[in-house]
């Protein structure tokens, strides 16, 4: 017996001697089945004042699944962004969100593609900032609503925070076509922007020195590469600060109080009269959603997404073999991103968000996997899928109902299976999805404020 086991033996003896209490229990039980694990009582939210309504057609498991979908929990903190909940940062970020000066051609803002009236999407299959030389992007423009609850950003999850996500489009030639150096100079040259920026973040770098700080450039551009490391770091700090103002604004874009939310609130409260106001077809659709259609396998949680990545085998829009690596490349990009949660511009480089980066596998089996999109406000965010391949909700439901169009893959994954629902059931599912449209946002949040300064 080695020394470790001897020590363990001694601890064992001490345990016998010093145990205050020990007990005997029954032999271990066998693997419980679902019915064994379901409590007899109807599950309730911890704070529910009364027992929820018993929905006759729902099994206890289905009812629990439905209750998990609403309401949205409190806004989660973002320790990587110390300005995340700063009202001045949110106001400045909102101003910049609609400001077309943040583009190479002076005609593109975030709102060009993230249009508030379309739940911050653009209604196009592929993102397209417009203009004479515009080229469509590779993927569909996702909604910005409820982004604060996301874990990864973009269809491939190549960003891990709202603020780092906001930086990518600024320098993408097909979007803003701008650069971090040009952005810094804009902030320095425009009195309104400079005042707002420096009130939040302190003095800008000495940008008047065009030798140290060329007028435009980003990594890979000769002007940028010619700069001193400290000067590049100073510009990166400005760039990340602007991302944090965008994030502070986007955290406020919360969609809640949909017809579905009101129904679940009524169920939780045991209010049968209010629950009866919910469209019966939507209620049937909810039953299918959490039951026979198994939608909550991926569209789980109050944001209707598991925040992870799957291959739903939708064919390419052009019918060609799928070439977009999706999450496979997204993992490499987020791990290599200098603006990720572990980077020098994160306000919590040792935090939980930074730690999770370490465990992402750079493996081939995530090829063509894309993030599960939220379904809140899905009725106003057509078209659908990562390339906007499916024009309507009916098209989406028809796709999942048969999977006849699904492309074959080498993956053994069987998360998806044909639903084999009737037309009436599909219509019910659509009614349910249509009931996920939230109440209109505060009008003050969906337009450019008159100035970048927060009114006193």
């Amino acid at each position: 017996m080695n020394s470790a086991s001897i020590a363990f033996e001694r601890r064992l003896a001490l345990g016998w001697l010093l145990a205050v209490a020990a007990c005997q229990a029954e032999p271990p039980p066998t693997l419980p089945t679902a019915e064994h694990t379901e409590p007899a009582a109807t599950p309730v939210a911890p704070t529910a004042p009364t027992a929820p309504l018993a929905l006759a057609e729902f099994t206890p498991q289905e009812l629990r699944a439905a209750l998990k979908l609403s309401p949205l929990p409190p806004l989660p903190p973002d320790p990587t962004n110390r300005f995340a909940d700063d009202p001045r940062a949110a106001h400045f970020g909102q101003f910049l969100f609609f400001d077309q000066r943040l583009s190479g051609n002076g005609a593109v803002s975030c709102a060009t593609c993230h249009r508030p009236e379309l739940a911050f999407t653009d209604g196009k299959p592929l993102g397209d900032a417009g203009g004479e030389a515009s080229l469509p992007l590779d993927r569909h423009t996702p909604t910005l609503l409820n982004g604060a609850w996301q874990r990864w950003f973009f269809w491939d999850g190549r960003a891990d925070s709202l603020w780092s996500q906001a930086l990518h489009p600024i320098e993408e030639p097909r979007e803003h076509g701008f650069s971090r150096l040009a952005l810094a100079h804009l902030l320095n040259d425009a009195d309104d922007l400079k005042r707002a920026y420096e009130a939040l973040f302190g003095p800008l770098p000495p940008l008047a020195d065009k030798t140290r700080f060329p007028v435009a450039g980003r990594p890979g551009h000769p002007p940028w590469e010619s700069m001193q490391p400290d000067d590049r770091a100073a510009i990166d700090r400005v760039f990340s600060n602007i991302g944090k103002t965008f994030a502070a604004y986007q955290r406020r874009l919360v969609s809640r109080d949909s017809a579905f939310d009101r129904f679940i609130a009524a169920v939780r409260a045991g209010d049968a009269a209010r629950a009866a106001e919910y469209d019966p077809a939507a209620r049937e659709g909810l039953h299918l959603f959490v039951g026979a259609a198994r939608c909550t396998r991926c569209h789980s949680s109050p944001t209707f997404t598991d925040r992870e990545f799957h291959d739903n085998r939708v064919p390419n829009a052009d019918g060609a073999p799928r070439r977009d690596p999706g999450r496979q490349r997204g993992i490499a990009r987020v791990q290599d991103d200098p603006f990720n949660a572990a980077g020098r511009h994160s306000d919590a480089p040792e935090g939980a968000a930074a730690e999770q980066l370490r465990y992402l596998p750079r493996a081939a089996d995530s090829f063509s996997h894309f993030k599960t999109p939220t379904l809140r406000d899905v009725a106003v965010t057509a078209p659908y899928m990562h390339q906007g391949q499916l024009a309507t909700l009916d098209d989406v439901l028809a796709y999942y109902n048969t999977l006849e169009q699904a492309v074959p893959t080498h993956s053994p994954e069987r998360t998806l299976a044909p639903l084999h629902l009737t037309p009436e059931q599909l219509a019910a599912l659509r009614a349910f999805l249509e009931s996920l449209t939230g109440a209109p946002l505060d009008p003050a949040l969906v337009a450019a404020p008159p100035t970048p300064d927060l009114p006193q």
Partner: protein
Amino acid sequence: MAAGDRPVHCEESAGGPRRRPTANGAGRPRLLLPLLLLGSVRCTAPAEDGAAAPAGATVASAAGGEPMAVVATEAPAEPAPIAPQWAATAKGSFTVGWSPVGGPVPVNEPFEIDLLLFADPEKQQPLTGATVRVTAWMPEHMHGMGRQSQTREVEPGRYRVKGMLLHMDGLWQLFVDVTAHGKAERAEYALTLE
């Protein structure tokens, strides 16, 4: 669930005792022991329908080396410690106990695992210096988890697994691949998340 197959819930008193259950017998009473100097273990068998079990703390293990299960619901405010689930590796060379750290296994949130490894069925010889890899698989969906966990030995025979995340509810298989003493063997468990 038959009488006698009720899940067992164990609580430790203040003082932070480290649990090291010695139970290994199938079909005979299981004895749970506190092994550090302070604290105690209190075990209760909930009502047969499981309703008395605290949320997220229901622990069930299978007899005879069969797959075991931890059923997690919603995380409690005060996470109850979870007793390790024990299994022998495929050829019986090693004995492996696992338990989630800090409470029940959450759905779609990061968690860590505490592994206890022994080089014998009697759990007398802690297995040191092993290479350990922990993965998870959903047999119904035929996919794994989107994370690659990392394991580090924190004291002789005790390993800490970080980077776990089970992103969907349902049945998961947990695989612990142990390489030591020129042998590579796997211990398997099952857990159902809801």
